[in-house]
């Protein structure tokens, strides 16, 4: 049996985390990307820089701040305690929040580019055909941005599966609660269990390749559909 029950548990947790992160990100990133693509506001540039930060920051820096913020004395921690949710660091929910922040640029950027490529015209056309702005957004902008939406989903999922530093900082590698595949591999290597590390690492390699391959195929198809 190449996978220990612990390893399978980590795989399951990883998939759950990545799925939830992706869903949350699409909900959050879509309006944010729309705003960034369309606004003439002077807040565009600073917000855009802020959203892109996780792309360049070392995961440990991001993880450190999140840990502090979610900790018992941090602003987020105080809020969650006041609401009776307790402290979120070293919990699955904390990990989820961290993943959302960490993968935010990977969801926002493809969506923003897709919305920018569509331009203002289709929304104007929709308005002349009696569609309210929200109606036009769902019936015209989103369908036209479908390739961007798909790219955002795939990248968010894959990036969450591949995260390590943030998980280690705010999750603490607790089996069954916050131990994901990447930290499980780390554990195996530390314990000199190279065979098991190989199985998981190989699985990750294959998974990542399939994702990027799918993206490449998607890119070609969307290029053909949208002239």
């Amino acid at each position, binding site marked *: 049996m190449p996978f220990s029950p612990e390893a399978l548990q980590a795989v399951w947790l990883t998939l759950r985390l990545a799925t939830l992160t992706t869903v949350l990100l699409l909900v959050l990133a879509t309006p944010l990307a729309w705003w960034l693509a369309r606004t003439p506001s002077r807040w565009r540039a600073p917000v855009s820089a802020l959203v892109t930060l996780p792309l360049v920051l070392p995961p440990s820096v991001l993880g450190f701040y999140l840990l502090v913020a979610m900790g018992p004395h941090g602003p987020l921690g105080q809020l969650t305690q006041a609401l009776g949710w307790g402290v979120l660091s070293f919990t699955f929910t904390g990990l989820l929040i961290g993943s959302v922040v960490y993968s935010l640029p990977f969801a926002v950027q493809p969506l923003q580019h897709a919305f920018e490529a569509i331009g203002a*015209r*289709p929304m*104007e*056309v*929709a*308005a*002349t*055909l*009696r*569609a*309210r*702005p929200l*109606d*036009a957004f769902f*019936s*015209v902008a989103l*369908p*036209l941005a*479908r390739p961007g939406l798909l790219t955002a989903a795939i990248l968010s999922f894959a990036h969450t599966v591949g995260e390590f530093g943030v998980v280690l900082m705010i999750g603490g590698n607790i089996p069954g609660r916050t131990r994901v595949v990447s930290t499980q591999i780390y554990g195996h290597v530390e314990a000199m269990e190279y065979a098991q590390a190989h199985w998981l690492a190989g699985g990750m390699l294959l998974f990542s390749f399939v994702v990027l391959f799918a993206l490449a195929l998607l890119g070609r198809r969307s290029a053909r*559909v*949208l*002239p």
Partner: protein
Amino acid sequence: MSAITDHGLHIRLTLPRASFELQLDLQLPAQGVTVLFGASGSGKTSVLRCVAGLERARAARVQVGGEVWQDDAAGIFLPTHRRALGYVFQEASLFEHLDVQGNLQFGVRRTRAPQAARTLQAAVELLGIAELLRRRPHELSGGERQRVAIARALATDPQVLLLDEPMAALDLARRQEILPWLDRLHGELRIPMLYVTHSADELARLADHLVVLERGRVKNAGPVAEVLTTIDGPVVVGDDAGALLGGVVAERDSRWHLARVAFDGGGLWLRDSGTAVGQRVRLRVLARDVSIATAEPQHTSIQNHLQSRIESVVPCAHPSQVMVRLRCGSCVLLARITQRAYVELGLQPGQTVWVQVKSVALVQ
């Protein structure tokens, strides 16, 4: 202003632009094609966008058929989706994620009109696109795309149809393909159309009413035949000033391959291009192709002679020439002749003369 009726269009607006201010106050008829004509950047498209509410002008008032869409004095501004208009954009603007049927249905579903299905069917027939309903936009030619876009706009049963240079993005062959459909629209639609263009051909062919814009101001406005023959501040359309005459094909001479077009004030022979007798057509007669004689011309190869009365005369840009406005029945012709000829023939306003027309172009 007592001229504001319930049925026409009233457009008054002020809109700052990069190098000038767009400012106009227009009362337009409730039927027919009004062409907004002017050079690129004269503000034509902005006028259309303001009427549609896509751009917001200051101190504006837009009234269409008794409905006020915008009146800044009264704090009224209807957003675009609440204005009963059809808008055809310059470039193909079909939704790429829907097929032709889906594009047509998009507006129809949102109007919730009781007879929507019938309106849609009529639009499909008017533009001849029944064969294309299952196609995707990228499978259509440029001309077909614009026909679908026009049908999509008409299917919402609008109060006014706004067309922003609908042929500018098409090549010559595609334009020839779509022009007959626009003629048909012109003949059959009972709503006013605002048509933006800088093409002399489209103007001559489609306009009933003409508004000439220059750097954001109305230079001239009125019935097209009137505006084109205004000689103080002439409107040069295409390569030269000239008159536009509406008439009917009265007879066809098969021996000489000529056709006679009759209009109020006379008739003109021109090359027979196969137009049936009884068909309404438009003729364009350029000022440089019209000459004046004090007696009926004889022994000349020019066979189109009309008796007319000199209405007025103004100097041309070059001091050697004058522009003469001639009344012929209810029609008006322009003639550009030399100042010397004018003086030596002893011409003056009010005088009855013969005009010779060297060349006539059929525009429709």
